[in-house]
């Protein structure tokens, strides 16, 4: 008699929906970027526009559906990328230790010390902004957190007997690190990653807010949200739709994260 795992179901539904948006927006929202300036802003409930339109007469809902891709894919890449960096460098730093450790943690400090806006702006200025550049920058800027998390966890694992047995088997450092330690720090890394996806989602929308996001005309939740702020008076849909999408998606990701984490050995996470 197995209990129904409600959490993944509850979290799964919105994620599936967003996933569908990402994959099939072309079909679901064909005229997302279709302008109709003569219509201009219309409130929610306008015929043909359940959530109204923006200044350029674009349908808020379709725009949001089309916006899922750039809103979600980037953050996932960021979180996953920074986790990989974190796992690699964090494990090296924690297990090999010594000069490498110092070097790596200095590197992490350096990254942590850089003001995000500055980097974002400089890169925007250098390479004409660009979505993937922003993603790359954020990946790098997110990694120090993962590096430190992993490093801490690795140091905790390294002194345990099973690692010592592995040493006695004269397994290569590489194997000990990536076959033995990494799987046991993976839970904490994955938790951080899932949280990072949510953070990256918000971070990217925040960059749009400061004017360093995707270019105008590109459908993107963050972009839509910051554009929508001006329309609050005329069409609340413009801010509510992308806002809710961001919050719900991030929440669902976290929920999923927690559930997965509980399925991992909680002990490994705490150590």
């Amino acid at each position, binding site marked *: 008699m197995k209990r129904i795992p409600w959490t993944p179901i509850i979290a799964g539904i919105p994620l599936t929906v967003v996933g569908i948006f990402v994959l099939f927006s072309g079909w679901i929202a064909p005229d997302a970027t279709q302008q109709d300036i003569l219509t201009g802003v219309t409130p929610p409930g306008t015929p043909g526009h359940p959530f109204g339109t923006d200044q350029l007469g674009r349908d808020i809902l379709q725009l949001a559906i089309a916006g899922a891709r750039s809103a979600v894919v980037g953050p996932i890449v960021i979180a996953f990328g920074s986790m990989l960096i974190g796992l690699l460098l964090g494990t090296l730093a924690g297990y090999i230790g010594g000069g490498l450790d110092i070097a790596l943690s200095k590197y992490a400090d350096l990254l942590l010390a850089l003001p995000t806006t500055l980097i974002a702006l400089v890169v925007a200025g250098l390479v004409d902004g660009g979505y993937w550049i922003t993603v790359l920058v954020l990946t790098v800027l997110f990694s120090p957190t993962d590096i430190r998390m992993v490093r801490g966890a690795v140091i905790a694992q390294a002194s345990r007997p099973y690692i010592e047995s592995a040493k*006695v*088997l004269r397994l290569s450092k590489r194997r000990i690190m990536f076959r033995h330690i990494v799987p046991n720090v993976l839970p904490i890394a994955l938790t951080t990653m899932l949280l990072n996806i949510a953070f990256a989602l918000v971070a990217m929308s925040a960059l749009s807010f400061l004017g360093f996001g995707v270019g105008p005309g590109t459908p993107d939740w963050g972009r839509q949200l910051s554009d929508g702020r001006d329309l609050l008076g005329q069409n609340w849909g413009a801010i509510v739709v992308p806002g809710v999408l961001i919050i719900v998606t991030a929440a669902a990701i976290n929920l999923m994260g927690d559930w997965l984490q509980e399925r991992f050995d909680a002990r490994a996470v705490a150590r």
Partner: protein
Amino acid sequence: MNALELHDLQVQGPSGPIVTRMDLTLQPGRTVALVGESGSGKSMTAKAMTGLLPRGVTATGTLVLGDTRVSLADGPSALAPLRGRRLALLLQNPFTSLSPVHRCGMQIAAALPADQRTDTEIARRLDEVDLPARVAQQYPFELSGGMRQRVALAASLAADPQVLIGDEPTTALDVTTQREVLDLLARIQRERSMALLLITHDLGVARERADRILVMYAGRMLEEGPGDTVFTTPRHPYTAGLRDSEPPLEDRLERLPAIAGSVPRAWDVPVGCVFAPRCSRADDHCRTADPVLEGDPTRRVACWKPLADDEAVLVPQVAAASPDAADTAGALVSVRGLTRRFTADAPPALDDVSIVVRPGEAVGIVGESGSGKTTLARCLVGLERADTGTIEWARATDDARRAQIVFQDPTSALNPSMTIGASLAEALRAGGRDRDEVPALLQLVGLPVEYAQRRPSGLSGGEQQRVAIARAIAPRPELLICDEPVSSLDVSVQAQILNLMNDLREQLDLTVLFITHDLAVVRQVVHRVYVMHRGRVVESGVMDDLLRAPQHDYTRQLFASVPGRSAS
């Protein structure tokens, strides 16, 4: 009036029953021993009685403590007020039962009545368990296993409970300490007329200490009787089997008569008698009908074909001599003047230690806890650097095949995220062997083959240790170092493992450095021993000679304190 009564305990695990139809009675000042193989449900019984079952495990039944009666179905909260003063539990694993970041003194004081939390009181409590006052200021990780367990004992006694449940409280201790601790327990018991439930796998301890003995198997109680008769005239074939597996100190047996097979999981026990599959006397009736515990209150047995007195006597086949001394060719490894000092204030862990191990030899190292055995072992396998001294190996290349080690603590010795199969396969590959030897390897250490798919967390202590041994021998190392390999195992497994050791030595002409505190055990395996004391080697020689005429008085004391034969 009874100090504690347990009626019809049932413990339910997530994947099935763990303990079934268990009841027991404790009298003030009396000791009841609960013996059984690992996985038989001893710890779960203890945890159920204290309301400390892990998540997902529930219990039913009634617990009567003096005048209070608690239904275990009511959950842990019902037992909370009783813990400490009424009954306390001393856990099995001294390595994890103390908080790593709190000073020992503090952890003892925590359970003391508020007004008694003074340094002098703590010092007294430490002294009670024969620890110096300085330990109060030390952290658990600075102490060896034995010392930790004594700290733990002091802590569990702090609130002066009426009933103490010791879950293998002396498993990790060496004989001298074990005797001291057991004597200590007995004394405290007398002083407070405290009831003691002693969970152990050491039949010697049970026989020597218990007024009554309960024998558990696969979550069932198979036999109950007075401490002096249960093993002299066992009624249940299983009890007899246990007794026979126990190694004698006097002579070295050709082969320990171990019980075949391994313990069934508590939930996939066969229909009929749970022991039937391993029982030589079992017939169809045994395999179909489940016997209940019956007989007069003093002597109860759950068996369709109990042994008669004459069938119950033990006929040991004594071996001709101790294993032949190996050809005194070049040493496999020779250690000279090894010294290791961890902290400036404490005495050195190793103090000018020199030993030699020759190919094919089985060498023992005995000594009390804290004497430096583990440190020496760690130095040998390169996990610890010695301050001074040299280690010379016959095998030039420093690879997996030079030396392997089996650790004392099984619970953390296996990678929690790897399946048993993966761990073993890896070890095999490290020794240049093939991964499809895994099933053979598992059988070799007496584990069901399906275990290859399991992860360590699903195994009981003993099962984990077997895996650890399997991993250590997988690369077929020239030297196998065993640091207390059987100290947390029950006798039948121990017997199997000791036989295994000897088999392995013959099959793979394995050289073994066997570290233990149990002379009877070491007796069965080794030819020569080194006796260590406070980081020095105080005596060494051929086992038999040493037994016959121990030179150093520490050695004498060691022999004297072997359980089973009362100190007289």
